[in-house]
């Protein structure tokens, strides 16, 4: 099956079609005020369909018919431009679009042209702009791109206040998060309550959940591409907000007018300084907790952009964020410290050879570190894990004379994993444990993809990605007998090859236009993922550990088939879609005993067990992007299962994030230039979990007898949020607005986790067990003041 499909792709990629004499028009599309490029603007020739859209750099290229052509360039939120061109050669032309004026009532928040809903061959794409995200009601006043994505069908949050997310039944590790081409490993602050991305520094967020193009790889379930905002090339401005728990500020402007710009932003929480005294009187027994704990996070980012000339553009992105938590209990002589953070840096160079050829180069660094330490009396332990990557990518785009777009490139990464480094110090001993060896690997890919319009109605995107992964030394391998006992140790030198993996990943997606306003699309994707996240807990915590594929840990393998019907109604005012999907996952991992297994006789890698998974479902989406009232309604009906030989007696069981129903309703209404109202409502089936069903006593200790794996459901999750924004002042020089948000309006106690309180005194024949549910956020109002000058 796979071979036949592969052959088909190869034929398709090199398909040659013949067309009449045509010329090419290419160039950039800019915002006329800031000179920043516009991504996803649509360009088409009047009277024909379909056209094209500008790429991430604002670059477009379109074929003209012989004779006179009327070009229309449109972009949501901007005034369309119409121009008539007569040519007998290839020409280049840039367009400058003026932002639409708000008083017309044409409020547009999306960067995505509604026409792409039906015309693009990509199937499962969600794109949100910074503006769209900012309009949603925010948790404690912090607008959050990842939370906004979770309001879309097929994307679900892990649990209350957790920004780890699952896409169509895939694990949290199966999402590739790219910030200007650099990988971000842990996207969350405050144990997941906020994402690490500050909306003021973000231009757009794009999520691909099916039909992932061949230029993306290394994750099975989704790609989130976050494009950092470029600084204004003409004017200086500063923007910021002051909220209850955090504040942020960003500045942008030209370095050299019209050809280079900067944008810097900084955000810091002050839960410790501000929230503590406010909350102290409200919570019972607060003195025991708040007096001894301290928590803060910050993130900082900077982007420098330089247009060297018409054909070369350089940009440098830097991000650093950190969370720090400290807890002290004097009466127990106990002290603990938990901190984690990401650092990414990337240098991107876009080069245009001519109107048919361009390429993008990117070199980046990513670092994620987690550390935990705890001390009680003279004993101190430390736990440290992390990952460091170096990545180089080059991506070529060639637009053929017949309208085909060929894309090919190379992607290389060097990984250094620090899986779980444990240190323990007692008064006179300093010990390291067996599991502390770093794991090194090379990951690389070459790919080719082709986009062909076979007829005016049928467009095919096909691609092939060849991936390789090499686990290299230094490494110590333990040889075991049939009893799983260590009989020998084999030592590999630095750089020595231990285990290579090579795989071919064919992908295809197609679109067939049924009419001017409806289409059907289908996609088939195979992919391999060479890194794994060992999750030790029922919630996503920074303690989760990244592991590469090794001799023992095989790469994850995924396959997805997806098909959908797409329709635009009322002259592109309302877009709708119905999508179905089926996914198959191989070589999934689980930890048998959690993170704190027996350090003395277990190598960490070996407490892992392997299995498979499946998920399928249907997603419905109705969305209105224009007008005073905008918003969407999404519904997902899905099922996700797992099968591991060593779990649940080998029987299939629901994944912990198996979710039958997921409903999201997002509405926003702009009353006039001053007042905007917004609301979101979420309903989701509760997470699956394993609970003890019985108990018995051995040697005087109560032992649990567990029920079937994940056979119990937590109560359903639902929540309503409301917000109102008042634009207090707006002039060319100064803007000021107030946002009042209420999170969890009817104060639903959504479960964060469930635990059991056991009161026992076995020798006096007494035992009582009660289930307790912990919820994090009751109704939470917040007020934020934002400004710009």
């Amino acid at each position, binding site marked *: 099956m796979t071979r036949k499909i592969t052959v088909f792709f190869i034929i398709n990629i090199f398909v040659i079609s013949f067309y009449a004499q045509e010329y090419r028009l290419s160039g950039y599309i800019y915002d006329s005020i800031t000179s920043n490029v516009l991504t996803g603007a649509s360009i088409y020739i009047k009277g024909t369909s379909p056209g094209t859209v500008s790429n991430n750099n604002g670059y477009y290229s379109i074929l003209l018919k012989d004779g006179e052509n009327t070009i229309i360039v449109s972009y949501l939120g901007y005034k369309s431009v119409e121009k008539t061109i007569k040519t007998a050669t290839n020409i280049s032309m840039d367009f400058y679009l003026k932002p639409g004026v708000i008083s017309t009532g044409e409020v547009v928040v999306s960067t995505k042209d509604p026409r792409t809903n039906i015309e693009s061959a990509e199937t499962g794409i969600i794109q949100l702009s910074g503006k769209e995200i900012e309009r949603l009601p925010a948790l404690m006043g912090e607008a959050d791109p990842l939370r906004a994505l979770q309001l879309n069908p097929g994307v679900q949050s892990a649990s209350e206040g957790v920004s780890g997310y699952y896409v169509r039944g895939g694990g949290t590790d199966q999402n590739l998060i790219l910030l200007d081409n650099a990988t971000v490993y842990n996207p969350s602050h405050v144990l997941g309550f906020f994402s690490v991305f500050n909306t003021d520094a973000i231009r757009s967020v794009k999520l691909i959940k099916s039909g992932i193009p061949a230029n993306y790889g290394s994750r099975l379930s989704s790609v989130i591409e976050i494009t950092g905002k470029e600084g204004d090339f003409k004017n200086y401005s500063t923007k910021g907000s002051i909220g209850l728990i955090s504040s942020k500020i960003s500045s942008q402007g030209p370095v050299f007018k019209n050809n280079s710009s900067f944008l810097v932003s900084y955000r810091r929480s002050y839960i410790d300084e501000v929230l503590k005294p406010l909350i102290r009187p409200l919570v019972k*027994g607060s003195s025991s*907790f708040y007096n001894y*704990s301290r928590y803060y996070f910050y993130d900082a980012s900077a982007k420098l952009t330089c247009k060297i000339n018409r054909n070369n553009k350089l940009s440098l992105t830097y991000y650093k964020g950190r969370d720090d938590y400290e807890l002290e*209990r004097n009466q*127990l002589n106990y002290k*603990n410290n938990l901190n984690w953070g990401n650092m990414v840096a990337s240098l991107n160079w876009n080069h245009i050879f001519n109107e048919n050829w361009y390429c993008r180069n990117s070199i980046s660094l990513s670092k994620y570190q987690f550390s935990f330490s*705890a001390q*009680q009396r003279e*004993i101190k*332990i430390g736990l440290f894990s992390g990952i460091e990557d170096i990545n180089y990518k080059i991506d070529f785009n060639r637009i053929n004379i017949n309208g085909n777009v060929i894309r090919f490139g190379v992607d290389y990464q060097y990984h250094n994993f620090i899986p779980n480094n444990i240190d*323990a110090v007692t*008064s006179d*001993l300093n*010990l390291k444990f067996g599991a502390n060896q770093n794991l090194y690997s090379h990951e690389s890919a070459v790919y080719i993809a082709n986009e062909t319009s076979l007829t005016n109605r049928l467009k095919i995107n096909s691609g092939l990605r060849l991936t390789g992964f090499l686990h290299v030394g230094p490494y110590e391998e333990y040889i075991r007998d049939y*009893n799983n*006992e*260590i009989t020998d140790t084999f030592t590999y030198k630095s750089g020595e090859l231990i285990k290579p993996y090579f795989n071919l990943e064919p992908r295809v997606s197609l679109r067939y236009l049924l009419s001017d306003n409806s289409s059907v699309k289908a996609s088939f994707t195979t992919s391999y993922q060479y890194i794994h996240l060992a999750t*030790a807990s*029922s919630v996503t915590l920074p303690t989760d550990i990244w592991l590469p594929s090794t001799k023992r840990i095989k790469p994850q393998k995924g396959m997805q088939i997806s098909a959908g019907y797409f329709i635009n109604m009322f002259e592109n005012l309302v877009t709708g879609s119905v999508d179905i999907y089926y996914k198959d996952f191989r070589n999934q991992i*689980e*930890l*048998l*005993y*959690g993170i*704190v*297994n*027996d350090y*003395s*006789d277990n190598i960490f890698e070996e407490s892992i*067990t392997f299995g498979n998974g499946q998920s399928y479902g249907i997603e419905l989406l109705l969305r209105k992007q224009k007008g005073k009232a905008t918003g969407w309604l999404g519904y997902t009906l899905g099922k996700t299962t797992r099968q591991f030989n060593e779990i649940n007696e080998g029987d299939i069981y629901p994944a912990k994030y198996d979710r039958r129903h997921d409903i999201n309703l997002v509405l926003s209404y702009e009353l006039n230039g001053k007042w905007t109202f917004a609301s979101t409502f979420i309903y989701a089936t509760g997470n699956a979990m*394993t*609970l003890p*069903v*019985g*108990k*018995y*006593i*051995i040697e*005087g200790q109560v*032992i*649990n*007898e*567990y*029920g079937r794996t994940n056979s119990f459901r937590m109560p359903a999750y639902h929540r309503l949020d409301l917000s109102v924004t008042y634009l207090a002042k707006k002039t060319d020089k100064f803007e000021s607005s107030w946002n009042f948000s209420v999170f969890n309006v009817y104060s639903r*106690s959504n479960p964060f*986790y*469930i*635990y059991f309180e056991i009161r026992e005194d*076995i*020798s*006096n*024949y007494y035992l*009582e*067990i009660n*289930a*307790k*549910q*912990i*919820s994090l956020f*009751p109704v939470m109002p917040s007020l934020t003041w934002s400004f710009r000058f």
Partner: protein
Amino acid sequence: MSVSININSLIYRLLRVTFFLIVASTAQFCEKELSIELPQPESKIVVEGWIEDGGYPNVILTRSAPYFSSIDSGSLRDYVVTKAKVTIVTGDQYEVLTLKPNDAYFPPYVYFGSELRGEVQGTYHLKVEFEDSDNNVYASTSIPELTEPDSVWFQLEPGSDSLGRIWIKLSDNPGENNYYRLLTRRKGKDKRYVASFKSAFSDKLFNGETIVQGFNRGLSDLLDFTRDNLFRLGDTISVKFCSLDKEHYEFWNTYQNEILLSANPFSASNARVRSNIQNGLGIWGGYAASYHTVIAKK
């Protein structure tokens, strides 16, 4: 290696405290009682039985209880199994055990033998029969060769002038997999032998080597981190050092993990306590044991 098992116990203690405090701190946000409808599991027969080299068989029988049921001295009676026929078979010998009260154990009723004694290399089959033969349970165990520690002693903890641990020096047999368990009993303080913290261990990482290993005192509540788990100067301690077979060891190893991990709400509960009981829960295990008396002094 020599101290790793003790360090483990300390790590467990610290992580317990951490999770306890995280729970305690988040709990103040919003906590409520939850009534959970759990499927009522079939009540199973639970065996806690052992036979030692040179000793008579002992079997305690109970039933498993629904998770949320409260146990008090009244309802306890429902979970103690007193009307079973318990038979031990080895080779062509067998003995039917008799029920006797013994308040050193919980519950305080033990099926006890008086003829058949355990022998090294022997295999012992357990049969527990009921009126309704569907409830019958079966198990088998063996008694391996005894490995005795070279020496056993008490040593004060660094920095302490009154508290210390029991230490052993052990020469492991090369060429075979060995499984050990250590229990202690303080004269005049403990009614029976109590398992030390992480009492069961294997020679996985020290096969054929000689190790020096310290052990904390076992606690009736292993999770109570506020109480000290050390021995005091002046204690007279009887140390029971056992060799056991693989299945028997796996029960105690998973049992220890379950006790340590089950109360942690963040941990994944993929682990299950293993059992060698057919149609039931618990353990029927053979020991080869040596006894050592140690007086805690400086």
